[in-house]
């Protein structure tokens, strides 16, 4: 009797699961109506990633099926390593499309350099958007006046002071560029964000600085207009053949490559250049990416890709994004996957060069 009952029960149960799985199969086109999507940013509320996420969140909410509310949730700590490690532990089934994560160049660099704190693995995640950006270095007018056209060799005798977030972060790209130009730049480590670096420049405590494009457009352009700062160079942009060319957002500012070419003693080939270029490519053209957690099915990836495509295709997108993000590629689908590859792989020779240089010049070791 009991056995019969049990068998009956299990049949009913099996039927039920089949039916429900069929139903869920049909509902596979992700519908998020009435849901809240959490857009987790592993930084604080004031940085460039916050600006980028705040820009996209409402637009994405409109474009996703069911118009969910997209809220940006900040999870700062250990220069984004903490948030990324947390995201590594999330699986798609827990959130069913209501969780996305935004990483940045500062998430990629410790990963590339083999920082022991990194417990995340990019290849587990599913990229749905990749945004590029650029950066601009700038000087006080009197020092900028010492440059002979694009030749920076006259700057070699000046002591530069620069507010930096730390040598293993995105800041290593400018630091290495300046070193290659023969400039002696003393980084003051330990500032909390690039905004603080600019404030140090404005106060005259620092006499060189750089900002990523969105921050440059917003906060440094007014200084340039008032004659308090002069742009020195951009880090450039990548063309389709992988060459560093002028940044289309700043067509009037030379790229580091041009300045390096014009400066005797700086080489646009060889070990240092290769290392710089490798880390520039990892840090800027594919700087900020949006991921779905590991285990996401193709439907979810497609839904999000479509939504981001729709955002980028908005007629007003060029206008609103140019003002807040700059003119950089916003990539989805295969292009995004390609730039994820670019951003998370670096030539071992370049890596060894950078690790050695960090240890020699700044005493930074990565094997603690």
């Amino acid at each position, binding site marked *: 009797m009991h056995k019969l009952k049990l068998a009956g029960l299990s049949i009913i149960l099996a039927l039920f699961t089949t039916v429900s799985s069929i139903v869920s199969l049909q509902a596979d086109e992700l519908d998020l109506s009435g849901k*809240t999507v959490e857009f987790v940013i592993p930084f*604080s*509320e*004031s940085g460039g990633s*916050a*600006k980028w996420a*705040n*820009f996209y*969140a*409402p637009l994405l*909410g409109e474009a996703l099926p069911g118009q969910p*509310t*997209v*809220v*940006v*949730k900040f999870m700062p*700590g*250990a*220069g984004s390593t*903490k948030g990324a*490690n947390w995201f590594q532990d999330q699986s798609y089934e*827990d959130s069913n499309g209501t969780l996305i994560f935004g990483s940045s160049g500062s998430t990629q660099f410790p990963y590339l350099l083999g920082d*022991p*704190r990194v417990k995340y693995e990019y290849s587990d995640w599913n990229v749905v958007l990749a945004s590029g950006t650029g950066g601009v270095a700038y000087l006080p007018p009197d020092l900028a006046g010492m440059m002979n056209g694009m030749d920076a060799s006259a700057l070699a005798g000046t*002591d530069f*002071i620069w*507010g930096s977030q*730390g040598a*293993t972060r995105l800041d290593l790209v400018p630091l290495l560029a300046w070193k290659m130009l023969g400039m002696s730049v*003393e980084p*003051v*480590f*330990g*500032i*909390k964000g690039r*905004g*603080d670096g600019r*404030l*140090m420049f*404005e*106060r*005259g*405590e620092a006499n060189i600085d750089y900002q990523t494009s969105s921050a440059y457009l*917003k*906060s440094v352009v*007014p200084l340039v207009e008032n004659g308090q700062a002069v742009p020195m160079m951009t880090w450039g942009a990548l063309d389709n053949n992988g060459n560093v060319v002028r940044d289309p957002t700043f067509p009037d500012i030379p790229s580091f490559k041009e300045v390096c070419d014009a400066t005797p003693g700086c080489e646009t080939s060889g070990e240092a250049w290769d290392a710089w270029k490798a880390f520039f490519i990892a840090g800027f053209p594919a700087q900020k990416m949006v991921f779905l957690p590991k285990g996401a099915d193709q439907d979810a990836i497609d839904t999000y890709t479509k939504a981001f495509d729709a955002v980028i295709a908005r007629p007003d997108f060029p206008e609103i994004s140019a003002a*807040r993000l700059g003119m950089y590629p916003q990539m989805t689908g295969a292009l995004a996957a390609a730039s994820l590859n670019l951003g998370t792989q670096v030539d071992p020779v370049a890596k060894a060069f950078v690790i050695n240089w960090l240890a020699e010049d700044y*005493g*930074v*070791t990565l094997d*603690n």
Partner: protein
Amino acid sequence: MDILVTAITALDEAVLLVLHPSQLLYLFIGVVLGLSVGVFPGLGGIAGLSLVLPFMFGMEPVSGLALMVGLIAVVPTSDTFASVLMGIPGSSASQATVLDGFPLAKKGEAARALSAAFASSLFGGLIGAIVLTFFILIARPIVLAFGTPEMLMITLLGLSMVAILAGRVALKGLAAACLGLLIGTIGEAGAGGSLRMATYDIPYLTDGIKLVIVGLGIFAIPEIVSLLRKDKSISEKSTLGAGWLTGVADWWKNIWLSIRCSVIGVIVGVIPGLGGSVVDWIAYGHAVQTTKDKSAFGSGEIRGVIGPESSNNAKEGGGLVPTLIFGIPGSGSMAIFIGGLALLGFDAGPQLIQNELSLTYTIVWSLALANVFGAGLCIALSGGIAKLTTIRFALLAPFLFMMISFAAFQSRQSLGDLIALFLIGVLGIFLKRFDWSRPAFLIGFVLSSQAENYSNNAHQIASFKFRRSLEQGFEYIASPIVLILLVITIVSVVIGIRQAKQIFSEGEMSTGKKTAPLIFLLVLLVYTTTALINAALIDLTSDKIFPVTISVVGIIALLILLIKMMMAPEGDIIFADSESGKEGHEAPYGLWGTLGWLGLLLLLTSLLGFILALGFFLLVYFRIRTRLTWPRVCFFTLLGLAFMCFFAYILNRDFPPGLLQELFKLPWPLT
């Protein structure tokens, strides 16, 4: 003159915008939201602002602004409730309010303390707006004059308040402050990322301990436990004394103090990077120094409430200056404010003030108006809410345990938050018991990372400048502002040490046997020595120098105390131990049993997750500890659960998960 004309024209436009009925409505909604969120200790404006941000996109700019500003403006007003009524510092801006506000509540004068605080808040907010209206036009060069050495000096000025709050034995205060500074260095160093008193095996520690946890642990838990042991109400008198009218009259009598503290608030708020953590201490110190009869401070002096409360609302106004002029937020809530502005299509920065002056003024004066609304509402409510202090405390305590656990968890959303809360709470209980100044500890903790960062940066920059030339170096570190601040700091330390003997933040103390105070001192000595060894092993100078220096100072202070203890006879004030006095003998319940209830809640949470644990905890507590009838037990339990779920749902907050949640996937709110 030109400036004045532009200001007045823009002001004219702004007034019209601010007083538009629909803007007023949005502002009012913001105020009500802010008040409801702000009452919750540790949540503050950040949670509230994140709540409204999603609705901001596409809103009419001025309405959106009104909503946001309304919310920000009243958070430092409403967190006063927790400070005064429960001795919980609601946010970093109201730490100092606890010192005198809570003793007033214990005396049955909660309504007086609250309304005096709100009147001061209101006034501070208005003064802030008036000063800003003109200051914002000329602020840029002044703000730029504050470089790293100047910021360091202001941080030191904040730290110098330790002298005044050190308590009966100055060395104990110094040691407590050093301990606070050391606890503040736990985790990854800001400069080089070296680990201090932490390991990668415990990821929680690498990020350091957050202020919310320390505030709750050091102030709230010892107070709750001590009240719960006595099993009476918060107010020691059964009837409430002085009402809210007295409070407003108190504020009026001290209007000059209120004006001075408001100005302090604006000035400190204007400097980016300092945030709210020093301003209330500086204002409190000022209030003490300018009062003739200092004997009541720490045990219910109304001036100790008026000072900090006048400054903390004025500070929010001041904080707008770096936020708007430089696009650099002065605090977490200002950071989200910038985000909100961006959603409305405005970019904070110099161009905002040049091109959109009327909008800037709209922000400034919405802030003032929101202060009036908020404080007005709070004064009206304070008489009623003060009645909470007459309820039997045993009935309130479990809900307080519930609230602080939930609030603590919001800091990192990790179970580690709850463990840290409990451990810091135990430390707080001992600091209170043996009369080691808890305010001194808190000041040290709050200013630790600033003190380290600024001294590191200033040292780096100064040594570059000195390498260039001696003249440049001195020009950098000995600017007029630095020198003026230095003088103020020295004066404040000297006066402070002289006055400290009159200010007892822990009230009357009795002394007992030598053993217990001695053991606690030895424990502190072991910790500081471990911290010293740990720091000495770090390679990077930038990461080790600060903890090494602080722990050496701490160890010296502790060693002198140790020698003094060996020399002093039993009964000397150095052996203060509240357990040997009234509290220890008369309280019907023991210390550890009472703390055990909080331990039980946290332990259950780690197993079952917060909501299940809370239900179970409330049932057991109300049945066993307060011996209520079953219907009442069930009613109170459901009440607590419903409140928690409602609150978390509205704010879209998570609950601490436990072991159960790791094994099984449960639906909200059991997650």
